[in-house]
């Protein structure tokens, strides 16, 4: 879309075929997965129709076309991330596999007994459990960074925990459960000052405003395609070339080797060293198409729209009793997490579903965060570019009716 066309959420919504099949659907579960624009669906289909073959090894024209499509996707994704080089973009199944790759490859090779991995209490389980497994295997120690009363990272505690024993700091760019945005720039700088590496979980953050990896200054960045209007089954781990060069293979098989013999096998250079087996080829093409599609819009305008929807929603909640917005005053992305006095979020969601409003309830794979907030669960509404003010108003009306039904 040309930049000079005024923003219209309704026009963006028209680019998403799912809403033709479900015209009344109010989809506020975008933090779980976003819907896909026609541009992404077309790109995957076009790949299968015009260039489908296995990559890198085929001695035929279709194989070259497939390899070009896949490596072209890597190059475009690297450009959208402002990575220094396409070789720094490793394709994975998603954020979870990306963090596992970093933890198992870098962690097992470089962590020693007594080394400390510092993780914020905001983290999704995907940025906790892989590090716990690697800590068990290496004798390293996982320590949490506590939260303030408002559910943001306690900065004073963070600084006091930073010692030379810290080898890695794991932070989310945007909490998947509450939307809280940690102050990444000073936290990354402080972590680097004690010589620690920094893993940023970008699964939510990249969908809302994107990322500039060279400006960010982190060492690892992980995200998924499917939360970014792209396909499921594909994600990215980014790390600088110097760091990847010092990391051993994690999974093994075809594609990742240099030369195999039973006397010994040598491994390919990054990124191929970390992409054993046939990668998600069409999905990588689809992910690049999703990022191209996003780049065709003004990202700041999209983010402002999503945040305006969140604010409209939260302003409307004031009219309703017994609802509390978690981390209400903290800097947050377009995610609202709600707790209810005397009501279970599951019950609220069951009624909302009946009114055609899709939200998420539970702990959102963020158990430590909910424990810190003293909650068994919360209800999450998360906004995307195709959501409209009408979606918000209908959700508020549905919530009001739900509260009456459950009174």
């Amino acid at each position, binding site marked *: 879309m040309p930049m000079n066309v005024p923003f219209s959420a309704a026009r963006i919504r028209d680019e998403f075929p799912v809403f033709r099949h479900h015209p009344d659907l109010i989809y506020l579960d975008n933090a779980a997965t976003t819907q896909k624009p026609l541009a992404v669906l077309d790109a995957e289909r076009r790949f299968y129709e015009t260039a489908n073959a296995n990559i890198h090894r085929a001695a035929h024209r279709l194989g070259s076309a497939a390899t070009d499509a896949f490596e072209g996707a890597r190059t475009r994704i690297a450009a959208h991330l402002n990575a220094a080089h396409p070789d720094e973009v490793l394709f994975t199944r998603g954020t979870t596999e990306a963090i596992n790759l970093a933890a198992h490859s870098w962690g097992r090779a470089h962590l020693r007994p007594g080394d400390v991995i510092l993780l914020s209490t905001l983290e999704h389980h995907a940025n906790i459990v892989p590090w716990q497994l690697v800590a068990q295997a290496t004798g390293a120690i996982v320590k949490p960074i506590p939260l303030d009363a408002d559910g943001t990272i306690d900065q004073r505690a963070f600084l006091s925990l930073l010692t030379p024993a810290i080898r890695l700091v794991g932070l989310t760019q945007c909490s998947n459960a509450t939307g809280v945005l940690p102050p990444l720039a000073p936290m990354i700088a402080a972590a680097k000052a004690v010589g620690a590496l920094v893993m940023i979980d970008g699964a939510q953050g990249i969908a809302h405003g994107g990322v500039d990896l060279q400006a960010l200054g982190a060492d690892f960045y992980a995200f998924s395609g499917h939360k970014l209007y792209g396909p499921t089954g594909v994600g990215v781990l980014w790390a600088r070339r110097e760091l990847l060069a010092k990391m051993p293979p994690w999974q093994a098989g075809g594609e990742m080797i240099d030369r195999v013999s039973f006397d010994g096998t040598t491994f390919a250079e990054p990124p191929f060293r970390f992409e054993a087996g046939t990668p998600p080829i069409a999905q990588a093409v689809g992910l690049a198409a999703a990022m191209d599609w996003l780049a065709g819009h003004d990202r700041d305008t999209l983010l402002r729209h999503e945040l305006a929807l969140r604010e409209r929603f939260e302003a409307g909640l004031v009219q309703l009793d017994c609802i509390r917005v978690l981390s209400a005053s903290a800097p947050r992305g377009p995610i609202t997490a709600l707790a209810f006095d005397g009501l*279970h979020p*599951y*019950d609220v*969601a*069951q009624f909302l579903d009946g009114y055609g409003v899709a939200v998420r*309830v539970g*702990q959102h794979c963020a158990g430590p965060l909910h424990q810190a907030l003293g909650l068994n*669960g919360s209800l999450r509404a998360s906004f995307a570019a195709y959501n409209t003010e009408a979606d918000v108003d209908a959700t508020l009306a549905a919530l009001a009716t739900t509260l009456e*039904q459950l009174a």
Partner: protein
Amino acid sequence: MSSYPPPFDHPFGTRIDRDALAQRLEAAAGWEAKNRLLVQLARELPPLPDALRTDEHRVAGCESTAWLVIGRQEGRLLAAADSDSRIVKGLLALLLTAYHGHTPAELAGFDFEAWLVSLGLQRFLTTSRGNGLRAMSRMIREAIAEFSH
């Protein structure tokens, strides 16, 4: 109608039977009325005492927590249950109605999940990862299977 000791002294499966519940559910046209009825059933099911709301009896779903206590008296299966969610608790009232106070012979051939589907409640089975209903139905069936050993 025989009465059972606490926590098995609730009406579901004894004073309220499957046919009575099926009639109420059929009268509740549409999902909204069905949700409301489940909330109403939850009100009719007394809470489990805190002493029984323990990890031993906890059946964790991703989205809500439930507690299930299984007992046995004179060849009959006894069951009591609770949940922090009212809709799940209403579904548990259906589960108790199906099984509580019955003998294995009375339950032979009974399919709880098919019964829920026939009552128009299949959507609660597809979200069973969240509400643990399928897991609890399986636990009761396993308890019944042990009766015959």
